[in-house]
């Protein structure tokens, strides 16, 4: 990979990231850095103090107005929880003690308002950063945000006015506020250094249908505003200075996808079944009730994975039973009569943990069910909340990261305890609520037959299963090629998990990324997978593939795929299959 300094070359640079929202965009880049406005200490004349203070007051009034607009928009688009950040920022701008202090100091010290303001706010920020918990650090960033906004307004530089015409926003990360503001401008696409498929920017771009690639690591250091760039939100590529060839390829691809997507609209209302009428369940992975509407519009029937841990983002503590209950109830009601699978808090690994806890090897450490079993109150709170939301009979519970039978038995004892407690309180729940587990650790995959005897369903989490089976951290560039979803070892595990479930007459689903990989669909149908759960935007495409094949052909494909010895051979074979069975699919391999 070239690491030419920016601006010295017109050479094409192709960067690999995570495809967060589908689509192709070509245009000028707008490098959005959290331009920290520079603050200089400047003396002012005694007769300038009042105009200096007037500038400060105007800037604060303007900032408040901006934040109120963002707040209203955020409440609508992101829900009240995410909007709270802006409410707190507005309150800070109304802090008369803070403003009085600043004004007094401007008069007494004869210094410019932005310097004094930043000096005052920095004091508080330091104290917040010194606190041990993550929540206070987040609040310190909020404080910084709000301060920069005021200072920008003092400088009379309007941050977003430079965003003229259509552009592709490139930034380190996008906060909810950024995405909200940009979504009102002419944005062709988003690209970020950080963030995953579930980041705010990713979710919002998908619902706004703006192509996005996230997790590009250092894209912001590789270009300047105005550089010509292209985003391929299907394959997760970001191209700086795209060559004529690349541009032609991309526009051909865009045209093919557009045509294909137009035809996909027809598929949305149809059932997910093969030509010979084998039905599979297509469900959505979501983390907020607000996503249900979009999921349904893409043809999702139920929710195959509700990530409950999303509630923990930016919070000082775990939500209470009642808070959780309200959220789960809303989801269960909205999706009724179809099912929703609530996965209990899956924290640890790379995911946030409310308690601050450091370990050498978090992916092999305290995460998922391991934490829940060690924190009975936390676990019972959540189980009671889910159980209470289950009265209409459409709620299922799923445990993450199980690696032993003992864990499953203990977790089920907790479910029993939660039920007993509710019964004692006279609170209704679904007594027949089904309990399943994620199969994402090789030990669980190998023991799937024993596990299947004790649970109601299995759902395969391919991201972790591949990572643990291949012993590869997929965020580590040096070993990324070893993250092989189609490695024969992975395929054998998938087959044995699905067979084990079926032998015990329980269904087997998949909620990992492989479920929405068009290359995997025929294989998975052939292996007998019962349920595919994925980001909603991929549902129509996967359904299209399912509807283009016969079960018996898919079985043959699966059998054949299992005879190959490498990931490469299997990919090559499967891409041939897809090209033959679904020639209109604009597959890029």
């Amino acid at each position: 990979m070239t690491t030419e300094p920016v601006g010295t070359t017109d050479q094409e640079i192709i960067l690999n990231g995570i495809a967060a929202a589908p689509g192709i965009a070509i245009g000028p880049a707008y490098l959005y850095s959290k331009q920290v406005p520079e603050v200089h200490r400047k003396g002012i004349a005694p007769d300038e103090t009042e105009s200096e203070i007037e500038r400060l007051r105007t800037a604060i009034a303007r900032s408040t107005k901006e934040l109120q607009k963002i707040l209203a928009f955020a409440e609508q688009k992101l829900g009240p929880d995410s909007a709270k950040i802006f409410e707190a920022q507005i309150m800070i701008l109304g802090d008369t003690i803070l403003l009085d202090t600043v004004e007094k100091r401007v008069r007494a010290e004869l210094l410019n308002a932005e310097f004094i303001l930043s000096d005052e706010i920095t004091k508080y920020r330091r104290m917040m950063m010194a606190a041990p918990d993550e929540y206070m650090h987040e609040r310190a960033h909020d404080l910084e945000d709000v301060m920069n906004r005021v200072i920008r307004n003092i400088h009379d530089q309007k941050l977003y006015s430079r965003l003229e015409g259509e552009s592709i926003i490139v930034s380190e990360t996008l906060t909810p506020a950024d995405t909200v503001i940009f979504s009102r401008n002419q944005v062709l696409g988003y690209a970020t250094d950080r963030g995953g498929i579930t980041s705010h920017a990713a979710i919002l771009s998908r619902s706004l249908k703006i192509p996005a690639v996230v997790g590009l690591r250092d894209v912001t250091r590789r270009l300047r505003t105005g550089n010509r760039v292209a985003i391929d939100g299907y394959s997760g590529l970001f191209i700086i200075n795209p060559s004529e060839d690349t541009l032609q390829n991309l526009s051909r691809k865009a045209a093919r996808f557009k045509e294909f997507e137009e035809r996909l609209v027809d598929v949305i209302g149809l059932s997910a079944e093969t030509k010979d009428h084998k039905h599979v369940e297509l469900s959505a992975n979501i983390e907020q009730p607000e996503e249900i509407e979009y999921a349904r519009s893409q043809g999702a029937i139920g929710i195959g994975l509700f990530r409950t841990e999303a509630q923990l983002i930016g919070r000082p503590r775990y939500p209470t039973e009642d808070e959780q209950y309200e959220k789960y109830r809303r989801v269960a009601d909205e999706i009724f009569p179809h099912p929703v699978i609530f996965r209990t808090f899956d924290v640890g690994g790379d995911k946030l943990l409310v308690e601050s806890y450091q370990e050498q090897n978090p992916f092999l450490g305290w995460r998922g069910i391991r934490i829940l079993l060690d924190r009975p109150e936390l676990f019972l709170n959540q189980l009671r909340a889910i159980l209470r939301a289950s009265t209409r009979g459409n709620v299922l519970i799923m445990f993450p990261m199980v690696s032993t039978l003992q864990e499953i038995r203990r977790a089920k004892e907790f479910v029993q305890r939660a039920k007993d407690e509710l019964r004692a309180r006279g609170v209704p729940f679904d007594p027949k609520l089904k309990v399943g587990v994620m199969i994402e650790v090789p030990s669980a995959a190998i023991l799937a037959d024993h596990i299947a005897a004790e649970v109601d369903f299995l759902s395969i989490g391919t991201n972790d299963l591949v990572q643990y089976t291949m012993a590869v951290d997929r965020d580590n560039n040096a070993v990324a090629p070893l993250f092989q979803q189609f490695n024969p070892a992975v395929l054998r595990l998938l087959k044995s998990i699905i067979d084990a479930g079926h032998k015990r007459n329980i269904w087997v689903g998949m909620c990992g990324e492989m479920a929405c990989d068009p290359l995997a669909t025929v294989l998975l149908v052939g292996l007998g997978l019962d349920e595919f759960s994925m980001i909603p935007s991929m549902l129509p495409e996967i359904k299209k593939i399912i509807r283009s094949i016969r079960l018996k052909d898919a079985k043959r494909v699966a059998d054949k795929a299992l005879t190959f010895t490498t990931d490469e051979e299997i990919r090559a074979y499967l891409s041939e299959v897809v090209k033959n069975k679904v020639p209109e699919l604009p597959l890029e391999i």
Partner: protein
Amino acid sequence: MLERTITIRNRSGLHTRPAAALVKTAARFKAEFFIRKDNVEINGKSIIGVMTLAAEQGSALHLRFDGPDEDQAAAAIVDLFERGFDEQ
């Protein structure tokens, strides 16, 4: 001058909403109002200050009131803490 020591009862501690209620109540009185937690003292009429305290459930806070209506101010503020900010 009047001093009181209280313990935070409500579950979410002095985070955004309770902090706002506290500042709002304090603003109704002329008396100055300071809160000390451990070694940090902040102005209880300043939302940014109250947020900075990061006071969790169970934290002990030392309250100081100073002014003509300090009695009423202390009563109103202590009541607010005792009611747990009417948190559900």
